[in-house]
């Protein structure tokens, strides 16, 4: 028994070594093409190649199957730092003159080489990461309803380099620059950093990030706003909040929102947080209207920006049930702690960078909320939540087993537990029934 076991073990070891061999050999080789460079530039170029090679994590290096030639040219347009063609890289020669012996390499030079190396990797037969659906979701090329492809990238706010919105391949390359050069990149774009780690290999610099997410929230006094520093660990659950429709054209189909069930400070996450209503917040996509009057034509053609507002739940309840006489249903979504953290991170990104257009049909609140959910929680992305009515989106969530509308079955209990907020019109109706008997008694007592 023993010898045969040993032989078997050896056989395994040989097989593993043989399989791993091509990977071990395939490593990144950068070949400097010194034509047209003076000796000082050659020294600077060699230093650059060596240092940038060291910046690439070992798993990235191992993905290069062929040596990469690096040329230096004066003929590139002034605004272009580098180009990658057929697995070879051409960089702007003037960049080499910015290298100083006793100082760290200039960032544009390092960034340009990392950028082009990422293109080479992406275009290699093993590459194609820029076509990944999740990366496009994260980057902001959002899915349109009815499977009509993807929108243009509207995540224009607070971009470190607007070139990243040109094409998904450029998004990949620009973000690779920042990932490898900025130690706090993983704090700024945690979801994209996690995507890189999953698809291309982990990055070893670890920076402790602040888990709190800054959001501007509207205050109850009109016009006032404050900064809400929200820790996802304080969120017990996320509900789909649906406002019933009314006769108004813009609100006939209802309005979809998300309710964050935030626990009061000091209370551990649990069902008791459902009663901390004054701490709950609502995420609501709305058209941002500067005019006094809403124009249907402008709504149809997308003249209004679509923004993600953060509002106190109490304000939302008052606004809908008392001012607009519409009931609100709050349907819990089956999301775990990790889902909620991912969703919140997406919320913060959309809140600060998204500058989309509100369209009555193809980019309304239901479409936006669906996109937010499937981009924040990747497992909801297939078959997707692209629905154009708030009720349609709720039905879709129920079919996927994510929403549980059974809490609404008993209306009185739902009202008491905060799953349903009745329109004040319902209350008036109920009171008219109560009052006649009440006033008679009142008369008798007198």
């Amino acid at each position, binding site marked *: 028994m023993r010898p045969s076991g040993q032989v078997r073990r050896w056989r395994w070891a040989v097989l593993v070594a043989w399989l791993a061999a091509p990977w071990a050999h395939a490593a990144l080789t950068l070949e400097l093409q010194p034509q047209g460079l003076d000796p000082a530039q050659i020294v600077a170029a060699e230093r650059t190649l060596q240092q940038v090679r060291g910046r690439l994590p070992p798993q990235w290096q191992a993905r290069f199957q062929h040596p990469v030639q690096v040329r230096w040219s004066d003929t590139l347009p002034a605004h272009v730092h580098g180009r990658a063609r057929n697995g070879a890289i051409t960089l702007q020669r003037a960049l080499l003159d910015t290298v100083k012996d006793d100082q760290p390499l200039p960032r544009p030079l390092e960034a340009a080489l990392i950028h082009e190396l990422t293109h080479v990797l992406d275009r290699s037969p093993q590459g194609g990461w820029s076509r990944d659906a999740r990366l496009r979701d994260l980057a902001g090329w959002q899915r349109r309803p009815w499977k009509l492809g993807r929108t243009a990238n509207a995540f224009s706010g607070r971009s470190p380099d607007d070139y990243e919105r040109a094409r998904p391949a450029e998004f990949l390359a620009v973000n690779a620059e920042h990932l490898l050069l900025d130690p706090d990149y993983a704090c700024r774009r945690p979801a994209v950093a996690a995507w890189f780690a999953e698809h291309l290999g982990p990055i070893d610099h670890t920076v402790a990030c602040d888990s709190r997410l800054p959001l501007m929230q509207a205050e109850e006094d009109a016009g006032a706003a404050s900064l809400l520093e929200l820790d996802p660990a304080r969120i017990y659950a996320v509900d789909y909040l649906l406002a019933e429709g009314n006769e108004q054209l813009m609100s006939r189909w209802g309005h979809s929102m998300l309710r964050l069930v935030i626990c009061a400070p000091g209370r551990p996450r649990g069902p008791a947080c459902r009663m901390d209503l004054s701490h709950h917040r609502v995420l609501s996509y709305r058209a941002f209207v500067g005019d006094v009057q809403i124009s249907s034509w402008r709504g149809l053609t997308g003249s209004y920006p679509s923004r993600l507002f953060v509002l106190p739940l109490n304000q939302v309840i008052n606004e809908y049930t008392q*001012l607009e006489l519409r009931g609100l249903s709050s349907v819990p979504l089956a999301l775990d702690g990790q889902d909620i953290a991912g969703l919140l991170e997406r919320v913060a990104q959309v809140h600060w960078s998204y500058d989309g257009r509100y369209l009555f049909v193809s980019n309304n609140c239901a479409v936006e909320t669906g996109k937010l959910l499937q981009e924040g929680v990747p497992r909801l992305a297939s078959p997707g939540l692209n629905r154009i009515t708030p009720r349609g989106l709720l039905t879709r969530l129920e079919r996927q087993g994510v929403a549980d509308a059974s809490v609404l079955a008993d209306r009185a209990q739902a009202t008491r537990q905060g799953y349903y907020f009745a329109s004040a019109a319902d209350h008036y109706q109920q009171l008219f029934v109560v009052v006649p008997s009440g006033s008679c008694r009142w008369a008798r007592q007198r």
Partner: protein
Amino acid sequence: MMRPILLLAVLALPLSAMASSFAGSSAGSASGASSAGSSSSGDDKIVIDARDDAAAFVASDGAIRGARLEAALLHLREQSVAQQQASDMVLARTLLAR
């Protein structure tokens, strides 16, 4: 009795309506119902937020029990032992009297 007065108070809420997936520059309008002015932080806030629900509860003879009232009752009973003994209706009235 308070009931007709309460009914009037509830009915006096503003009835104007606006398309709500549209926000003005102030990110939506503030409700005219909750009493403004006094401090609205911490404990008070839970009580102030619950006023409309408490009014509906008292006026409907306990038939309408909103979640905000529920939250305020929990909060009041957590605060003092005396209030643990009081009935929901008494607490709702106390809440309105504040």
